[in-house]
């Protein structure tokens, strides 16, 4: 990174700005790699992209009158699709390894598509990255589900130059979830 190392106390000059093309490319490759891990069912490896203090959150979305639209996205502390820590995600993943998680036995086929990636600097060591996801699931004979939504990550630049996701907010574009469960990750 090329920032002025002496400016810790000052406002970070790049805050709010888009990252450059090289970093943008690395972030996209990071996401594509993540999608591969999920589609290959390598959940334990997938978990390693997250920081220890992870907050992984997918609020509910309700239909509201336009003048009350501010309430259409559920808040922290309410019922939610996901409200997870790294530990609780690990707990969910252990279930799949039990060999008795029938909702994924035989396993579903999934394809995680990631696009519309925009990354902004937050601080010298943190990025805010938004993207869109489309997850296709095909299960058993003809069962198909499409999960579409947006994702906002807080990505930390680790000392070794790798990325670590510290916060992930998923916004499913759904009111009634059009699927019988959420047995994959996003």
């Amino acid at each position, binding site marked *: 990174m090329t920032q002025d190392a002496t400016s810790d106390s000052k406002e970070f000059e790049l805050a709010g700005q888009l990252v450059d093309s090289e970093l943008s490319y690395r972030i996209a490759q990071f996401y594509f790699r993540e999608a591969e891990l999920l589609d290959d069912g390598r959940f334990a490896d997938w978990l390693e992209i997250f920081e220890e203090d992870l907050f992984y959150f997918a609020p509910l979305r*309700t239909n509201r009158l336009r003048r009350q639209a501010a309430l259409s996205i559920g808040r922290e502390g309410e019922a939610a699709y996901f409200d997870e820590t790294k530990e609780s995600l690990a707990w969910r993943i252990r279930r799949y390894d039990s060999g008795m998680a029938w909702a994924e036995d035989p396993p579903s086929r999934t394809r995680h598509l990631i696009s519309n990636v925009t990354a902004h600097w937050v601080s010298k060591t943190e990025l805010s990255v938004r993207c869109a996801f489309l997850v296709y699931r095909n299960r058993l004979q003809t069962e198909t589900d499409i999960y579409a939504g947006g994702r906002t990550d807080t990505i930390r630049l680790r000392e070794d130059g790798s990325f670590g996701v510290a916060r992930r907010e998923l916004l499913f574009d759904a009111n009634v979830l059009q699927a019988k469960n959420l047995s994959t990750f996003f």
Partner: protein
Amino acid sequence: MSTADNCSSQPEANASIGRMDRPAELTRNIDVSNLVDSEGGLIDRSIYTDHTIYGQEQRRVFARSWLFLAHTSQFKKPGDFFTTFMGEDPIIVTMDKTKKIRAYLNSCRHRGVRLCRADAGATKMFTCTYHGWSFDLAGALKSVPNEQAYPEDFDRNKWSLIEVPNVQIYKGLIFGNWDHAAEPLEETLGDMRYYMDAMLDRDPEGTEVMGGVMKWELEGNWKLAAEQFATDWYHVNMSHASALMVLSPTGRGPKPEIVATPGRQFVSENGHGAGFPTHPKSRFDAKPVHEYYDYEMLRERLGDAAVEGPMTTGHATVFPNFSYLPVNGSIRVWHPKGPDKIEVWAWVLVDKSMPDDVKDAQRLYNLRTFGPSGIFEADDGENWSEIQAISRGFVTNQVPLNFQMGIGSEKEDGTYPGKTSELYSDAAGRSFYKHWSKLMNTPAWHEKKEEA
């Protein structure tokens, strides 16, 4: 808490229901006696798939039973509203100016548009977006654009919203019934109240819901889910093997004594059911919640048997389609959406007096175990959809299903109110279908006598 009985007067608007004299061909009724053998424990699969039976169910089960609408904590001020369904009928639940909870058919009286399209919110009037008919919180038609063009005898009072004539509350749970002469909610619940109290009455302040409603859909008939929550502890060890494994202290699954736990299953003539282990170590509650409870106080409040039974871990259904899990703080409705589809609506329920961190522990435990991403819920949904998906097969559909576990085991056990069976039993399932069958074969309030 007392009930809010407002069945005294059938609103004039409701007199319009069925006024058009529908031809009998629109409502064919099937005698279902041979499809439910509640004594022998056999169920014909057509009750999950047949469209005629499904239509009859809307008329004779849903249009005359107490159906869960919402929780009282969802309404704080006059004008707060929540939209839901009774069977497939869209409903607005709101608090009127006198703070009474009322429920209306969510359909404009003019051309029938869904009147309110928001899931929840606050308003003074419900105004139709088609031509602008506008209704107040008491359901009265207050404004009709270009009203002078209607005939002179046009009377707005005759075009109020269709009101659910019977709305009653049991310990925070609001139920509605289309039958203005329905037996009161508390009588219909009967002994079921004792089992519900183990969830609803642990706290003198009562319960409240946290946030909105988790909603998702799955392939399956609504009865598959309702019946399972009424009667089925049997599936727990197999269906939820993976979840039990990650929840158990060793990570290897529950000990044999927990698998073989004793317990009871409440069996109600009105179709309700509730099952619970009575082994002191068979508990799957969230640790901070378990540590929060003052069990001595609870024993005094609810009785030893309630604390040692229905407060441990359990499942329950209030007939027909409201179910709950006391330890997971989950209350839910299985909304029927055709014979082969359920829309599940699930709330997070907590005790009002819990400190915030305990509420949060209960909430997280709820989301992670039951709910669309819940590690228990997912495996239930898979089983139901795999019953439904293959049941269109002609031969498949004709092979009866087995509900014979614990036949003849129901008795008054001297500890738990009403009749109970063993924990591992189909007894409440048999009585669920017996009651269903009785309603299906009995003309409802909206039917003319000669149709019987």
